[in-house]
């Protein structure tokens, strides 16, 4: 069964990042499988309106500017008319929102459910429970997930975290991991320095990514092994700490700081390394280690969040988030490298190429779509009951918001009736004409 899917998020091209490339790659693979996919996001500077990306991927850059942290201002009701219009024009039957940080995604899911369109939400990050910002965000997440038909998480740890935060039934959450485009991340043995052992670090130099751990690990490793050098890509507030370490221990020829590395240049930096070091303090999935593994590097990482689930033990050395443990694991990896006991770069690349593919992600996402399409429709009363369960006081507020949104929808239907909205041309029909009438199933 072919669906018309609307991907919604505040994070999309021209921004480069994990969520952005996830949405793009997933959309492309779903289009390959014959579905119709559109993307809805906010305006980026002058880029506003409708644009087409490869394979007829239509992107709606809504004329709303981001306010804080790449996200639009959350107003709940003002996005209703435009989202309703888009969903009706494109005959969307599934709305897929990405990232709990995205106000646009959460609002679109809410409006979709008000219009009885099925909704899916993908969570890409881990959250705490104890501080004030987490408590508020979790409440909002409970509200969103109370209405959603199904949720997708990128790792099992992420699923446990989402289930606890959003108080939803675990069988309503599917675990579908991220993937990499392995054709971009290929190993090249000629780039490596055969005399030395090169350790590559590629992350933002902030506290959350363990920059402090990195600063304490580097001098220790450099003193133990004279043939080890570090290449560090990325910038941030903790860059000063690394530079201080370099100054203090006189390691200028053994540590190279590259600053911010553009996305297209990441592979070039990765292939120069033998070992990839990741010191994050929290990660839901960590796509960086998969990219590094695809380039043939051995990975050494802190065992936090979803990282232990991502790579098999022969491709990754896990360590506790402490300097001593990381140094131990690095020692083991360096020893293995010296004794040529590591998996060959081509072997590692092939493994990643077969295991983490976007086609696999699209296939599993399609199963979710089929399941929710077949599910029975939920009445307004049921939805309001579910919102009520979100909390003693919050439940009543959420019911009020949901009911008000429903009334606003009726108003929109009266002002701009469904019959008067032109349906947009389906790109798949155009493709069929171009490819000479290949028989694809039509969507209803």
């Amino acid at each position: 069964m072919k669906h018309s899917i609307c991907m919604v998020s505040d994070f999309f091209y021209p921004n480069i990042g994990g969520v952005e490339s996830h949405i793009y790659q997933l959309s492309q693979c779903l289009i390959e499988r014959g579905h119709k996919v559109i993307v809805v996001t906010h305006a980026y500077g002058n880029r506003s309106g409708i644009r087409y990306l490869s394979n007829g991927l239509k992107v709606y850059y809504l004329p709303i500017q981001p306010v804080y942290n790449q996200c639009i201002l959350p107003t709940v009701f003002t996005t209703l008319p435009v989202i309703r219009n888009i969903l009706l024009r494109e005959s969307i039957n599934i709305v897929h929102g990405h990232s709990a940080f995205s106000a646009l995604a959460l609002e679109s899911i809410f409006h979709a459910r008000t219009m009885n369109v099925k909704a899916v939400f993908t969570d890409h990050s881990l959250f705490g429970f104890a501080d004030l910002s987490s408590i508020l965000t979790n409440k909002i997440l409970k509200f969103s997930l109370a209405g959603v038909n199904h949720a997708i998480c990128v790792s099992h740890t992420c699923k446990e975290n989402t289930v606890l935060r959003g108080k939803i039934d675990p069988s309503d959450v599917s675990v579908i991991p991220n993937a990499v485009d392995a054709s971009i991340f290929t190993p090249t043995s000629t780039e490596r320095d055969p005399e030395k052992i090169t350790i590559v670090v590629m992350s933002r130099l902030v506290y959350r990514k363990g920059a402090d751990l990195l600063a304490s690990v580097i001098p220790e490793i450099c003193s133990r092994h004279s043939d080890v050098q570090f290449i560090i890509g990325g910038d941030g507030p903790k860059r000063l700490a690394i530079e201080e370490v370099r100054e203090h221990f006189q390691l200028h020829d053994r540590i190279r700081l590259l600053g911010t590395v553009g996305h297209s240049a990441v592979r070039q930096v990765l292939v120069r390394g033998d070992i990839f070091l990741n010191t994050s303090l929290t990660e839901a999935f960590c796509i960086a280690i998969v990219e590094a593994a695809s380039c043939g590097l051995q990975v050494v990482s802190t065992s936090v969040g979803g990282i232990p689930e991502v790579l098999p033990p022969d491709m990754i050395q896990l360590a506790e988030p402490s300097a001593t443990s990381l140094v131990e694991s690095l020692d083991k990896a360096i020893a293995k490298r010296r004794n040529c006991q590591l998996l060959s770069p081509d072997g590692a690349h092939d493994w990643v190429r077969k295991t983490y593919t976007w086609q696999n992600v699209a296939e599993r996402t399609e199963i979710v779509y089929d399941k929710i399409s077949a599910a029975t429709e939920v009445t307004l009363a049921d939805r309001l009951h579910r919102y009520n369960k979100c909390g003693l006081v919050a439940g009543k507020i959420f019911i009020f918001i949901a009911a008000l949104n429903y009334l606003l929808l009726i108003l929109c239907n009266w002002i701009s009736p469904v019959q008067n909205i032109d349906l947009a041309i389906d790109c798949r029909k155009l493709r069929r004409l171009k490819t000479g009438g290949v028989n694809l199933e039509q969507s209803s």
Partner: protein
Amino acid sequence: MAMSCDRSRKKWQKVLYKDQGVSDNYVDESFLEEMKKNLHIRTYEFWAVVRESNVVMQQIYSVWIFVAVYFHMRNFVLTPQFLFEMSSAVTIVGYIVNFVILHENALTKSRWKDGKTMGIFLILGFSLSPILMTLTKTISTDTIYAMTFFMLLANLLFHDYGTDAAIVSQAFSLNAAIFASICLASRLPTTWHAFSLVTFAFELFALWPILRRNLKIHFPRLQIILSFLLGSVVTVSVATVSSVAVVVFLLLHLFITILCPAWLIRLQPYKNNIHGPWDEAVIKQ
């Protein structure tokens, strides 16, 4: 198929790279196994908490004493000369006690520096007192009393009671108290009154907490006796101003010393701290 039977007998592993033959929304028995609840819980003992609550009460005593002194001066029961002499004498005694407790040298440079600071403050205070008097002349007394109330409340809220909380701001707390004293001082008849009240406020809100902290560190058992003494002073001085105020004070005392600890202990079973592999790692040394 025989293959899938084989797989289902193998234990489900929490990994993403193997196809374990189950659907994506499969919930294993080991789901949420690594979640731990209430790891770092503290058990509270009622009387220990009551004893510790006197830290808050002592600052409240300071506030009440200050307000009582203001009303006494207003009613001409207390003369500014008497207040100034008494508070100066007590301050000097307190100062001596402080450096005896800290085992400091009696004749070091810091004595000279402290003396200089005191001199500068007294001179500045005395010369600025006439301005203080007329500063809030046009504002109505009710507004002044309301502002004083909120400023003293802010003093209590932001005071450093010895914890490491984000809300603590010693500077803000002291500033609020001094602002309150300026508000009240402007309602007094002469410059002398204003000067003595502001000086008293400084001694009470800036210098007394320092001595209190040092006493607490070196003589923890004195705290209860100190609280009793101060409490009685407050009760007596407030009683002579207004009997309603005494009742309010005693009820407030009861609430903070008895009811709040009881409430805290009653709420402990509802604690629900969730820990698990999703937490941001704490770097171990």
